[in-house]
């Protein structure tokens, strides 16, 4: 029988009322035979398997991790842990951890020593740098690395090598969050706080299945729902998720039409004057433009486009318009769909129109998908310049050059940073000669996998992978460097409500595996990266020194870490800057032309707004109400591909299951791919639970057993976690299995992205679904 916390991922209720503190509930999971008394040490840490940032302690006994428990005093989770944290730690002990570097010899990856591996990498990069220049080298980082590692990569790549080609896998999950915040507030940074859940009377979740992505945050909402004066929930999701089941109102729009729905909601707010005109006049620009844009987006028109009942759209607007303390969250349902940034920006507009920002219960959270996504964006490991500096602002470049003691011209700023999908394109056409991948698995997580594999496999591309396991991507690499992970190294990371946690080393990594920071510092030394005075560019050697360098870099910027020391973090999580619960109280934004991180983009073409244009639009640095017209998705259902495919997540797995697939309880809870179909489609086509279905798009084919579930008619859902490392195919579909059909959802997805945030679209492919006759699984 499944463990109770597998059966109930959210655990027991601790009801509470509005404005009351969320009660503590400490969750704990220890290895068989271990009791809390027999644990040698409890080491402070935080969760690295989702973006919620739950604080925990690692139980250590005889030099080995033997379990975890939640930290009861922490502001984020107040002791609770989700199933991935309760069981995921076991992956650290997996027998297939990489313990020695690997190098490709005669086509095969073979074990080697660190000296050989690192000198091979350094010589290759140095050679490219000398012969083809910095633009021939790219870094693909991760929302799994700690802040110290992300900042080190940013300095190494931007300040040392001088390449504009740096991005994180946060491009896939949270790029739209960052971009939407920049577009509306001039600067990244979550305005809200998780404590807004405690105060809100209406909570709106836009494309955010929080019950699966952040179980502890959902527990907080469930506890409010179970207490006195509960909030009302608005859920926008094509699936009938647990959130939808608890919602006062559930809208299930047709995939790809979020922007139309949002425009109609704003249309209603303005038509009924549910607008805080004083706030709008004092703190925003762009109202007239927005009003004009949404004028034609009537509920009736939106209902037609989105496939909804116009009455529901009106009711949703009423709910939002009547809220006294509105908290909204946004995630992949918007971020990975057509017109991602434009749709997410309208949620910001909703809060600006209602003047609901910077006060308890008036929270706006453009959520993150990954545990350290925030740091990727802050430090510049996603290509942006560190500490929310603006690449188009020469003064910001000069500041950074001074901090790093390099010539300003060393720092690439001639245009926007190269995003991941463009980097893959440069690798495809041969202008990128090396790709250095840290702690992520593009051979499963990127769209159109046959293309991604064919790019990574090219002889002319030198691929370095730093990871814990021989992932699908590592199998295609030229050099594989074994990394240490959570519990085996020290560092900080920041969650979706700006809470920073210190995650300390509890045990030694296995074999010769090394902390990512150590590997990166070794690389920097070998590349002999220098300041303009000839000194070493990177002077730190420990995580705390790296953190202190970052504190100096962040000083005075919105994400100022100077008041948040390691010492202070040892007592529990702290929100930047200096424990500030909410940004933008009293409408004080960081959008002034001299201060802002970005001048914004054309949301439809992606073309950057010119500095002069921004200055004339927003001279006083107010929030920007940015309007956008709905246009239909690029790939619409057709005769050959009549259905729509969306991909997503399971509550039991993280990313490509690198860790969660190696934790027995999690693996058993969701061992293989499935496809969700609606009852109506199942009845129409004669599909039942367990029938093997073949899903096809112009890119590929996936076989998966059917699960008849609550999902919009005409739409099917595939979880994206499942790759091939634990199948006979290794890095790809086994040709012997089902005519070469795969099980990775990304065999099917299209190479298309939001032009503003550059986030790939995983939720708007057209597909055909047929039953494979005579096969039962």
């Amino acid at each position, binding site marked *: 029988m499944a463990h109770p916390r597998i059966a109930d991922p959210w655990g027991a209720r601790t009801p509470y009322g509005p404005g009351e503190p969320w009660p503590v509930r400490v969750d704990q999971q220890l290895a068989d035979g271990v009791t809390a008394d027999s644990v040698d040490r409890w080491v402070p840490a935080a969760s690295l398997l989702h973006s919620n940032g739950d604080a925990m302690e690692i139980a250590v006994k005889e030099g080995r991790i033997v379990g975890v428990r939640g930290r009861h005093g922490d502001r984020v989770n107040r002791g609770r842990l989700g199933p991935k944290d309760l069981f995921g730690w076991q992956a650290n002990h997996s027998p297939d951890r990489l313990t020695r570097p690997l190098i490709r010899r005669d086509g095969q990856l073979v074990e080697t020593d660190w000296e050989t591996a690192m000198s091979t990498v350094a010589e290759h990069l140095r050679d490219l740098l000398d012969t*083809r*220049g910095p*633009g*021939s080298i790219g870094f693909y980082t991760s929302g799994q690395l700690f802040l110290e590692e992300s900042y080190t990569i940013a300095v190494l790549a931007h300040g040392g090598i001088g390449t504009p080609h740096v991005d994180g896998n946060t491009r896939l999950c949270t790029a739209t969050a960052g971009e939407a915040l920049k577009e509306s507030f001039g600067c990244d940074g979550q305005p809200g706080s998780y404590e807004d859940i405690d105060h809100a009377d209406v909570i709106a979740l836009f494309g955010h299945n929080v019950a699966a992505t952040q179980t502890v945050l959902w527990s907080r909402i469930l506890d409010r729902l179970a207490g006195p004066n509960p909030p009302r929930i608005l859920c926008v999701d094509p699936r009938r998720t647990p959130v939808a089941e608890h919602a006062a109102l559930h809208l299930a729009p047709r995939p790809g039409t979020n922007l139309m729905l949002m425009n109609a909601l704003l249309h209603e707010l303005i038509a009924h004057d549910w607008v805080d005109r004083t706030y709008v006049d004092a703190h925003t620009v762009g109202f007239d433009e927005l009003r004009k844009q949404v004028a034609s987006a009537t509920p009736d028109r939106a209902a037609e486009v989105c496939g909804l009942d116009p009455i529901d759209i009106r009711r949703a607007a009423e709910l939002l318009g009547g809220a006294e303390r509105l908290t909204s969250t946004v995630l992949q349902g918007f971020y990975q769909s057509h017109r991602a940034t434009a749709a997410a920006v309208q949620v910001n507009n909703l809060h600006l129109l209602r003047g609901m920002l910077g006060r308890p219960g008036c929270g706006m959270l453009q959520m993150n998908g990954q545990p350290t996504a925030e740091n990727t964006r802050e430090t510049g490991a996603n290509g942006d310049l560190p500490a929310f500096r603006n690449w188009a602002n020469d003064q910001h470049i000069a500041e950074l050059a001074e901090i790093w003691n390099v010539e300003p011209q060393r720092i690439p700023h*001639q*245009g*926007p940073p*190269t995003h991941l*999908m*463009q980097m893959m*394109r*440069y690798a*495809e*056409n*041969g*202008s*990128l000669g090396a790709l250095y991948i840290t702690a992520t698995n593009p051979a499963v997580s990127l769209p159109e996998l046959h293309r991604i594999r064919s790019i990574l496999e090219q002889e002319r591309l030198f691929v370095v992978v730093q990871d814990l396991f021989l992932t699908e991507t590592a199998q295609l690499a030229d050099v594989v460097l074994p990394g240490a992970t959570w519990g085996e190294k020290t560092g900080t990371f920041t969650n979706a409500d700006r809470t920073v946690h210190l995650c300390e080393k509890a045990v030694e990594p296995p074999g010769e595996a090394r902390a990512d920071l150590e590997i990166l510092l070794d690389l920097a030394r070998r590349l002999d990266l220098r300041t303009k005075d000839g000194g070493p560019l990177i002077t730190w050697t420990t995580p705390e020194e790296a953190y202190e360098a970052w504190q100096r870099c962040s000083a005075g910027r919105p994400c100022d870490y100077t008041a948040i020391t390691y010492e202070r973090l040892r007592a529990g999580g702290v929100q930047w800057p200096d424990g500030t619960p909410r940004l933008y109280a009293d409408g004080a934004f960081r959008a002034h032309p001299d201060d802002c991180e970005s001048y914004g983009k*054309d949301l*439809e*073409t*992606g*073309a*950057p707004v010119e500095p002069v244009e921004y200055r004339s639009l927003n001279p006083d640095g107010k929030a920007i109400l940015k309007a956008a017209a709905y*246009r239909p998705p*690029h790939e619409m259902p057709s005769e050959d591909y009549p259905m729509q495919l969306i991909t997503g997540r399971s509550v039991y797995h993280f990313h490509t299951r690198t860790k969660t697939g190696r934790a027995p309880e999690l693996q058993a809870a969701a061992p293989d791919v499935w496809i969700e179909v609606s009852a109506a489609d199942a009845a129409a086509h004669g599909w039942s639970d367990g029938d093997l279905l073949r899903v096809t798009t112009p890119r590929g084919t996936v076989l998966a057993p059917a699960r008849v579930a609550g999902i919009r008619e005409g739409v099917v859902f595939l979880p994206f976690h499942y790759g091939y490392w634990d199948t006979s195919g290794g890095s790809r579909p086994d040709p012997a299995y089902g005519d070469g059909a795969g099980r990775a959802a990304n065999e099917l997805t299209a*190479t*298309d*992205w939001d*032009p503003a945030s550059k986030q790939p679209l995983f939720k708007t492919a057209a597909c055909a679904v047929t039953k494979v006759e005579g096969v039962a699984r």
Partner: protein
Amino acid sequence: MNRINALLHDLHDSEAGLAGLLLHVADRHRADHEVFHVARDLAGWSADHLRELTRIGHERGLDLDPEPPDPDTLLAKVRQRTGDLLGRRSEVGLVLLVDLREVHVRAAGVSVDWVMLGQVAQSLRDQELLDLTSRCHPETLRQLRWANATIKVSASQILIG
């Protein structure tokens, strides 16, 4: 033909030319996915302008072709396939720069046509034409900025890489 009708006629032709060029560029650079998708979206904007110009032209006795170029002809498919096949060669980057330059020049021409129409409409207090211009011209400027921005993003990688 009066002066305004002559302007409408020229604008119709220049928008049709820009729509066709954008589709052509999109297909040729199908392997550059953002160029492919955005150029096709932008061709759609010009197609909308064409329909509006045709409608207004018709009211004024002009016989203009309302049909924008078809984005999905057999020839377009062939071009896309070729775009895919050549996408792995580095030389295709230079072709992209030349093509984007041409889009920029052509969009600038369309923009100037709208400026002239707008000026005339303003002088004659022709509200219908003024409304048309204020709807369409900003989109032409966005097409222009897109071409410029895409060149800016790609140039150094293509010319140095």
